[in-house]
């Protein structure tokens, strides 16, 4: 394959991210940075799921943190109440999220615009309420402790382990997403985004496709939530709260709707900046609010497509 073809290959972004994943630890001044890296990759995975739903299929979900919560509590409850090994709970959580997305998605995705937005918002908050109230299972508002992951007898705990697990999973998630985009399904989703009625007239089962992408995005978020629980070894109900859902959407908007790499960029910015500018901790909500407003008003396409467009203009 020629150099040009390699650069334009569908999976070129994956290679770039894989290289970053491998080389980044060389730059870490201390092991604390592994934790930041882990968080970035975990949230990038969740926001990639949201991106598939919002950026590509053109839907909206303001309650996706609900799936984050389901995945997280699946691991907590699985270990504490069901005695299940964590890796099984991760799969269980993903299946449960997929199932719930399938059931809830059927009716909800018939809605559009602000009705869809509010309905998904309501879903997210409903999950948070259930997690807060069913204290017998979930430990209530104070949350639950989560035992660390043990795989084939090996304990996998701490930021270093989760940096690699999170990073590799994100790379896999990228590959699947990029595969989907460059396939008949990807074109179909894009078409649905641009004109549902025309899509229908070409034989596309719009409802089914929207549901499929909703389920896939729920699974992405669920796995991310499970990882989050195992990384922190603690989980509280606000993992599925309103603020979390908006953070996920903010990451997508920031990085660029419809840009796979943008999901990573958005997650990185929204996680790294508050860590570096610790004085901002107090102002976190204000900053989030301004970021969301600012980007939705002025830079709706997001950072990565924005840069790509600017580069394109420079070349001509």
């Amino acid at each position: 394959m020629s150099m040009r073809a390699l650069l334009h290959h569908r999976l070129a972004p994956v290679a770039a991210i894989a290289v970053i994943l491998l080389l980044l630890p060389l730059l870490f001044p201390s092991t604390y940075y592994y934790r930041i890296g882990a968080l970035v990759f975990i949230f990038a995975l969740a926001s990639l799921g949201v991106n598939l739903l919002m950026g590509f299929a053109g839907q909206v979900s303001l309650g996706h943190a609900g799936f984050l919560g389901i995945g997280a509590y699946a691991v907590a409850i699985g270990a504490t109440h069901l005695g299940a090994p964590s890796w099984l709970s991760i799969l269980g959580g993903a299946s449960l999220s997929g199932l719930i997305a399938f059931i809830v998605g059927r009716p909800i995705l018939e809605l559009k615009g602000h009705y869809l937005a509010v309905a998904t918002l309501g879903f997210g908050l409903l999950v948070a309420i259930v997690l807060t109230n069913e204290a017998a299972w979930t430990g209530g508002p104070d949350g639950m402790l989560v035992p660390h992951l043990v795989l084939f007898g090996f304990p996998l705990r701490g930021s270093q382990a989760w940096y690699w697990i999170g990073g590799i999973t994100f790379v896999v998630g990228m590959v699947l997403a990029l595969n989907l985009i460059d396939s008949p399904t990807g074109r179909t989703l894009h078409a649905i985004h641009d004109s549902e009625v025309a899509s229908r007239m070409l034989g596309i089962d719009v409802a089914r496709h929207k549901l499929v992408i909703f389920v896939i995005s729920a699974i992405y978020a669920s796995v991310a939530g499970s990882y989050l629980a195992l990384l922190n070894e603690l989980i509280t109900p606000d993992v599925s709260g309103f603020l979390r859902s908006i953070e996920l959407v903010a990451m997508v908007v920031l990085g660029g709707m419809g840009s796979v790499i943008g999901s990573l960029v958005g997650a990185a910015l929204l996680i790294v900046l508050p860590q570096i500018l610790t004085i901002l901790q107090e102002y976190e909500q204000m900053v989030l609010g301004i970021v969301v407003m600012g980007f939705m008003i002025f830079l709706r396409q997001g950072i990565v497509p924005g840069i790509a467009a600017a580069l394109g203009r420079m070349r001509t």
Partner: protein
Amino acid sequence: MKVLEVERLSIAFGGVRAVSDVSLAVSSGLVFSIIGPNGAGKTTLLNLISGIYAPQDGRVRLGSEDVTGLAPHLLARRGLSRTFQNLQLFLRMTVLENVMVGRHRHESTSILSNLLHLPSVSRQNLQTREAARSGLARVGLAAKAERPAGSLAFGDLRRLEIARALASEPKVLLLDEPAAGCNPVETEELDGIIRSMVKDGVTVVLVEHDMRLVMNVSDRIHVLANGRTLAEGTAAEVRSNSAVVEAYLGVHGSEEAARAFG
């Protein structure tokens, strides 16, 4: 057997009878036009046939199958396709990608294999791309394949929509006012495109206002007025039907026209 048959179709919106008791039958390989003054119910009739509205009364038959009330995507799978008066293109995709989506009906890879991008998916992508390219060539848009659809001129957009609809290889194609907004040159091209479609075995149902195009290209014309059938026949028959002239020009106008033609 008729390729498309409509029997006593009716629908009312809040008291307004948009389409009332309309029946027609389209034979295979013909250009069947539906005309009528503004508000006659032409687009509503198309929407009824293409599944966007469900009729309150009457039946729609595609071949021997009763397809009344079927959802649009199920009708599309049975070989019915349509274009839209207000153009429903995928403006953010490229011209080529638009037509590629048109091939959806003939793509066979499952969502799982798409996720894994198995070799069958690469093959499918290639096939779809090639078919789309030749579809573009047929309407003369091959040179603009990689441009975003939103950047095309209006006449090109109309041709793109037709190319996209043809890519699904329909048995029946409903064209909703394709000449609207086109200049005479573009309308002439449209004439040619329609004729070549018919030669390839597509049955065309044309809803149009441009009388020259209708009279030139139609094998049969069905006239609607106020949601009801006014007349049906060949171009010559319809043109000389005084009721039709009256519907378009009004009683006064048709008297004027009669006087003008001596």
